[in-house]
C-alpha cells in the first residue's frame, strides 16, 4: 500500500477543519444568476453587475504590435475561430503554463523575436542619426 493510502486510512481524526457556505442567499449561485426571471430594473442592474463581477476583469486597451508577415494569418486564424488576438494570447499563456516544455520553446522563440526587434530599433536610431547629421 502506498504511504498516502495508508495515511488516508488513518486520517479521520487529523483532517483540518474547514467552514463552508452552503446557503443560497450568500454569494451568487451561478445557476440562480442565470435563471430567466422578471426583475425590476434596479434588481436587473444589480444582477447584471453581479454577473459582471463574476467574469474576469480586463486591463485598459493596450496596443499590440504584430510582425507584418504574421499579422494576416494570425488575424484570419482568430476570425475563423471567432476569437480575438488578445483572447488567443491569454488562452495560449494558460495552456502553455501547463506544458513547461512547450512554454520554454515559446519563450525561446519570443526571445529571438525580441532580439530582432531590438536590433531593428537600434538600426532605425542609427539611420535617423545619420540622416540628421547628413
Amino acid at each position, binding site marked *: 500500500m*502506498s504511504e498516502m493510502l495508508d495515511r488516508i486510512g488513518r486520517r479521520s481524526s487529523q*483532517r483540518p477543519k474547514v467552514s*463552508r457556505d*452552503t446557503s443560497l442567499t450568500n454569494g451568487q449561485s451561478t445557476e440562480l444568476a442565470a435563471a430567466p426571471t422578471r426583475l425590476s430594473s434596479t434588481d436587473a442592474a444589480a444582477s447584471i453587475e453581479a454577473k459582471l463581477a463574476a*467574469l474576469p476583469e480586463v486591463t485598459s486597451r493596450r496596443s499590440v504590435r504584430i510582425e507584418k508577415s504574421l499579422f494576416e494569418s494570425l488575424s484570419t486564424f482568430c476570425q475563423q475561430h471567432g476569437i480575438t488576438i488578445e483572447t488567443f494570447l491569454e*488562452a495560449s499563456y*494558460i*495552456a502553455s*503554463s*501547463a506544458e513547461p516544455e512547450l512554454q520554454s520553446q515559446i519563450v525561446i522563440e519570443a526571445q529571438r523575436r525580441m532580439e530582432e526587434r531590438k536590433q531593428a530599433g537600434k538600426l532605425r536610431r542609427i539611420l535617423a542619426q545619420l540622416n540628421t547629421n547628413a
Partner: protein
Amino acid sequence: MSRELTVIACLSLAGGQGKTTFVTLMGKVLAAAGYTVLLVDGDPQSNLTTFLGHEVAADEPTLLELFKGNVELEDAIYPTKIKNLYLIPSDDGLDNVQEYLSGSGVGAMLLKKRLAAAQGSFDICLIDSPPQRSQICKSVIGAAEQIIIPCEATVKGFGSLVRTIDAINELKEVGASSAEILGVIPFRDKWVGSNQTKESRDAIAAMATVVEQAMILPSIRESEKFKQAISREQTLEELGVPELGYPFEMLLKRLESKEVVAA
C-alpha cells in the same frame, strides 16, 4: 509499488444521463478488479457522495476546499466502505467554486493540478460531473485524459452528446484539454422482450453519426434494478442480475486492452 494514474471524466451535458449511476457502479467494478480507485464528486448535487453512503460534516474538507487550495489532496480523500475505493466528496457548498474558477483565469487547469498528487497512490481517478456547461465542467474536461459520455437513448440524450462533444472540442481548440473520448454509453436503452424499442434504436443510430461507430459501447439497459443496486449500495452481481453489468465489464476490458490501465 509505483502506479500510473489515469484520470477519466464521466461527462454528459444534460440532466439524468446516467453519469452518477455510471461512476458509482464503474467505480465498484474497477475496485473489485483490484485497481485502487479515486472517485471525485464534481457535482454540487452531490449524488455520488450520497450513493456511496458517505456523509460529509460541515467542517470536513471536500472538493471545494481542494479546488481552492485550502487543503492538501489527501485531506479531501476519504476511504469508502468498499476496499480499494476512495472518494473526494462534495456538498451544496461546491456551487461557490464557480466564481472562484471564473475569477482564477486558470480554471480549466486547476483540477488537473490539484489531482496530480494522486499519482503513485491511485490507478484510476473517475470524476462525476454536473449537467451544466459550467466552470466546474471546464475544469473536469481540463483534468481528464479520457472521457466517457453516457447518453440517454432518446432525443434529449442525443442532444446531450452533441453538446458534450462541442464543449470538449472547444477546450481542445484552445489547448486546455488533451482528453480522448473513451466511448459513448447509451443509457436506459429500452427493450421489450427481445426487441429494442424504435426510440432507443433511432437515438443510438443518431449517436453513431456524431462519433465513430466503434465509440458506441454496449448500452445500459432500462431497468429498475440499477436504482435498487444503488439505493441498497449493492453491485448488480450481488443483486442477482450480473447480466446487466455487461457494459461495465466491457468498459473494463476496453480500458485494459487500450492499456489505459495495466491489466
